[in-house]
């Protein structure tokens, strides 16, 4: 043991033995009783409410648990925000923005756009049209299907001269002479 450690221990030993003495408790008793008798009931109630609401901060493990819980909540919030942002970015990528004045678009894409323009009844604004890829595919699929059915119908009419004559007669009656069978 080093000499300074011995001295340290001796000093501590003496300090431990010498317990500070309170000569008289009477003075403290009187002052305390005087103070507590002045405390109105409402103050005690207010203290009680504050203690009830925030008393947990004096309990170490509760305080630590609350800190941990708040950190977890913050982490969950950050994670949730990142998921939402990812989802928004994904949806953004799903949207096809068609610029009317774009010239670098491939030929089949232009054809598709012209078709959509025609299908929309030529009422779409010429500069911008926003549609998702999925919607676009559905639209093209139904147009192709419709065109196929139209061709089948024409073939049926061509094969049956009676039917053809009947339809031509009806078209003349309703003044739809522009349609050729």
């Amino acid at each position, binding site marked *: 043991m080093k000499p*300074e450690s011995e001295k340290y221990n001796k000093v*501590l030993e003496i*300090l431990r*033995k*010498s317990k*500070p003495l*309170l000569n008289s*408790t009477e003075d403290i*008793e009187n002052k305390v009783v005087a103070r507590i008798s002045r405390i109105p009931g409402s103050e005690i109630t207010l203290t009680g409410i504050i203690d009830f609401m925030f008393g947990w901060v*004096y309990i170490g493990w509760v305080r630590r648990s609350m800190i941990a819980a708040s950190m977890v909540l913050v982490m969950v919030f950050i994670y949730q925000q990142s998921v939402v942002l990812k989802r928004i970015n994904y949806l953004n990528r799903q949207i096809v923005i068609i610029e009317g004045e774009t010239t670098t678009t491939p030929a089949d894409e232009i054809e598709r756009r012209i078709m959509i323009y025609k299908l929309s009844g030529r009422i779409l604004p010429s500069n911008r049209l926003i549609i998702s890829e999925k919607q676009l595919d559905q639209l093209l699929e139904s147009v192709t299907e419709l065109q196929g059915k139209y061709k089948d119908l024409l073939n049926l009419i061509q094969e049956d001269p009676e039917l053809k004559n009947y339809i031509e007669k009806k078209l003349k009656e309703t003044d739809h002479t522009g349609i050729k069978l």
Partner: protein
Amino acid sequence: MIDIKLIEECQGGNFDNFRKLVELTSPFAYSIAFRMLGEEDQAKDIVQETMVTIWQKIRKIKSAGGYKTWIYRIVVNKCYDHLRKKKRHPEYAVDEQTWALISNIISEGPSAELENRETSQIISLLTNRLSPKQKAVFILSEIEEMSGDEISEITGMHKSVIKANLHYARKNISEMIEKYL
């Protein structure tokens, strides 16, 4: 030893019984406050404030067992707050007279007993360079001889924090003793 019956009677709002409780509690509350603050008047003020707090929260006490730890917690927290405020204006000067006093006491041997004033001088001198946290841990562990668990329960500090603060306090005080004694 505090009797639970006395606490229950105080919970009923009886000033006379509370006076008795103050008489029983004040000496050890004063002892720790004095050791932590090193000033008689301030220690008495802390005891008074502690007793008022006890009166306001006495309804929370369910057993006599936890009463002493609870008192310690209130006293230590009040002293800690006081030290933190005081720490804003730190003053330190080498006090040769006190070092001579310590030297004399050590030479007297373990039978030496200190007066309150001497205890105050020595503790103030040894702990002057410590932070409030280190001082609190040093007093509770080295002078009051409390275990890490007890200190943790009283101060709300984690055991590792207590160990680190105690290590620093011991090192600092040993160095001072080595240098000046």
